[in-house]
């Protein structure tokens, strides 16, 4: 098991390296000038050149890339100056004269726009995204499995048809429409009854009390975001469950004298879960990056919104940083899922 995890982490490293390549070169192929975005269209040429030089944007592309990798790498070579020491906060390993081989935490650079450190920006926004994605997936998984179970057990009855038709609706409704409808209905028209706000983030800044956790703000966006995965999980659970219930070992379980409850929850569900886990992990990963509409409409402070704005402004370090973090989360989720497969189904061998 441990060997498998280590191996997968090594693979993950290569995946992330690939991601860095692709995003870096893709982004530089985009038309537009980040420096102009920083200074506005009325800036003069010298100022632009000066900043371009400072950011290293005048260097050939491969050199820029090498420098970026050097900044990212935990073991890297830098000019051994006080300025760099402050910038990277490194520990010197080997002194190479002017340069030094150092160990440091990856340096994601600073935003072109706000000059804030990118790792700080990500840290600030990642929490909101993670909490939102987790909450909506928990909601979707829990209710999805329950609805799927009901549909499978009451196959071809009213309840089955209800679950299926509702889930088809849930799958086909575009999330931005659902987001607007839900926020309007529950956050505005029914506000008196629900007490839920139209918009808001996980934290609020109260002038007197400081940072306040605002969990009620989570409900509507998490619900909206969870609708589609919920519908898909319900359908998957249903079809997988129906198949498992027709297996011979379910007949064996019945012949043992177990009651329906034990048969379904113990013998069948464990066998039916694999496709569901695949779906959950896929959605979890995509919600990390794709919750932009929801974040936008509910004014939820999160990584998706931040990244989108950064792309708009050609704020290269922020985009790179956010992509990297999402890629790492993807890799980790996949690893967790593979381990889960093996714990649930002993026939799956980790190699």
């Amino acid at each position, binding site marked *: 098991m441990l060997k498998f995890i280590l191996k997968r982490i090594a693979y993950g490293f290569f995946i992330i390296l690939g991601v860095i390549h692709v995003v870096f070169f893709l982004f530089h192929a985009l038309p537009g000038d980040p420096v102009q975005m920083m200074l506005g269209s009325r800036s003069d040429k010298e100022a632009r050149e000066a900043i371009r030089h400072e950011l290293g944007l005048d260097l050939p592309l491969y050199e820029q890339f090498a420098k970026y990798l050097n900044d990212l790498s935990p073991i890297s070579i830098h000019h051994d100056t006080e300025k760099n020491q402050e910038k990277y906060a490194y520990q010197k390993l080997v002194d190479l004269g002017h340069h030094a081989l150092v160990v440091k935490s990856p340096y994601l650079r600073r935003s072109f726009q706000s000059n804030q450190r990118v790792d700080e920006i990500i840290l600030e926004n990642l929490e909101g995204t993670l909490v939102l994605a987790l909450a909506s997936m928990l909601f979707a998984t829990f209710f999805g499995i329950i609805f799927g179970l009901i549909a499978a057990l009451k196959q071809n009855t009213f309840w089955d048809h209800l679950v299926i038709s509702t889930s088809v609706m849930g799958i086909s409704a575009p999330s931005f429409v659902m987001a607007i409808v839900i926020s309007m209905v529950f956050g505005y028209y029914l506000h008196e009854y629900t007490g839920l706000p139209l918009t808001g983030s996980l934290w609020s800044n109260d002038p007197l009390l400081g940072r306040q956790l605002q969990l009620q703000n989570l409900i509507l966006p998490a619900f909206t975001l969870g609708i589609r995965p919920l519908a898909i999980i319900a359908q998957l659970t249903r079809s997988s469950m129906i198949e498992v219930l027709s*297996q011979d070992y379910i*007949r*064996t379980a019945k*012949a*043992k*004298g177990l009651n329906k409850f034990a048969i379904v929850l113990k013998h069948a569900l464990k*066998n039916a879960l694999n496709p569901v886990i695949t779906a959950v992990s896929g959605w979890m990963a995509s919600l990390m990056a794709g919750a932009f509409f929801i974040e936008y409409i509910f004014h939820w402070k999160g990584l998706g919104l931040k990244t989108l704005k950064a792309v708009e402004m050609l704020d290269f370090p922020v985009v790179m940083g956010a992509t990297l973090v999402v890629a790492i989360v993807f890799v980790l989720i996949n690893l967790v899922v593979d381990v889960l497969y093996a714990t649930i189904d*002993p026939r799956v061998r980790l190699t």
Partner: protein
Amino acid sequence: MAKHFETLFKSKEEKEIILSVKNLTIEFSSDEGSVYAVNNVSFDLYKGETLGIVGESGSGKSVTSMSLLRLIQEPPGKIKHGEIIFHSKKFGKIDLLNISRKQIRSIRGDEIAMIFQEPMSSLNPVFTCGNQVMETLMLHQKLKRKAAKENTLELFERVKIPNPVETFAKYPHQLSGGQMQRVMIAMALACKPSILIADEPTTALDVTVQARILEILQELRHDRETATVFITHDLGVVAEIADKVMVMYKGNVVESGTVLDIFDKPQHPYTKGLLACRPRLDLKLNVLPTVGDFMQTDKEGYITSISNAKFKSVGEALLNNYQVENEHRAEVAEKMKSAPILEIKNLSTEYMQSKGIFKKKVNITRAVNDVSFEVYPGETLGLVGSSGCGKTTLGRSILRLIEPCNGAIIFEGQNIMQFSQRQLRSLRKDIQIIFQDPYASLNPRISIGEAIVEPMRVHKLYDNDNERKEKAIELLELVNLSATFYHRYPHEFSGGQRQRVCIARALALNPKFIICDESVSALDVSVQAQVLNLLNRLKAKFNLTFIFISHDLAVVKFISDRILVMNKGKIEEIDYSEDIYNKPKSIYTRELIASIPKGNIDDIRKAMMRRKLRDKNKGNRLSA
């Protein structure tokens, strides 16, 4: 002697009745209408007795057994009427069809337990074997985990599982089929049921394993006086284990009686047909009698006429098809005078498991290990051995469907091992293969006519599709299927019909050589007889050469001129079919022959004597 047996059964009568089924009728409805899967079936089961229910697929034998525990899916199934009176220890005399769900649940697995056909799919893959047996104990006997575990280990020992402690923690997929079935038996016997229902418990297993499982069942029955309902399509197995036999056909009981009566004096033509169509080890037959020789049926298989049947008794049928051994031997010897059509020299095929990043080759399994033999034109070479002996790998290696690692395969003077991919493709025209599962080897979305035309098109046989279609229709008729079937799809056909389609498809390319890989193993005995006869007829008509691979020595012996016995990748022996049976040289072959249920009267008598003797001994022990 006869008197002795009468008293034997008299004494049975006095025994306690434990279960009696009266006028049970079960209907299955679908969009196309409804059928009576079980029609007015009645029988009694006595304490400690084994009742064999025999029938082919669709006979209603499994439905009957499932209904005893109310395990039939409703819908589509529905119990129309009838009663199943069970003498329960807990509830007294009850009708199983008329008790609450809670009551039936407390009977399932406790007083009536069941073993199923496919141990591989009947055990839950995600729980350990021990866990699944413990579950029953904890459920019905309210044992705590520790006590349940101890009991389970005891049960494992009882059913002769080697290393009970290890097996306890293993998952089903880590065990062999025989071991899994032992776990199933342990599970069924956990609560000492008064009735054990065994639904084809040995059908999916090798003969040698089957023999051991049957032995275990016999012993357990004697130790515990468990009444057993044993369902099977194999009359040979029934002969070994049953006291009474009930023969079912199309939902009806056509005949029932003691095992001796059924085998010695079968009354119903269907029973006679079933008895006659089993390939025999002791006689050499030209053609296998089929059920159709004893009775005529309509399209749905209902019996229409028995008056103008070809044969009236089993003996007559055998006599009419009997072949003198020496004649046959002379024929084979004649064939062996010509040059071999296929020569295998020192062929080996290995399976490898790779490990690590650099794909180090470890765990080499030699599935075929240095095998050499010849096949002569016009003969059928039988290839027999238990599962895992390498016979299928050998069959596929000959066609290089699995790449052998060394040796030579010389077909008509050319070494196939040196063929390029293109040469191999054109070779497949001359050598065809018919697989085991006719359900899986036909594409469900291609009509059977198209399935036969396709290989002709691929190998550019005939000028245009019209000619190919004509040829396909001709082939369909050759394998006794109607030309009107051309546009139909595989799901509309039964297993036997599908296998005929597969045969027609193999013949489409006018091959010289056909490899049959367990081609009749998935078929009912009566259908198997028809397909075997068909293969023999085609062999004579087109002068084909066959390699016939099967685990069933009786089938191989019927169809083959010579037999090659394989064990653990090596050839045990190769000889004339008759000699293999009459004068087996290797220990392995002898074991193989010994474990085949023969179903002849003497063996049945012996088995009954043994049982009687044990009962007596046990009685003495008890009284002492």
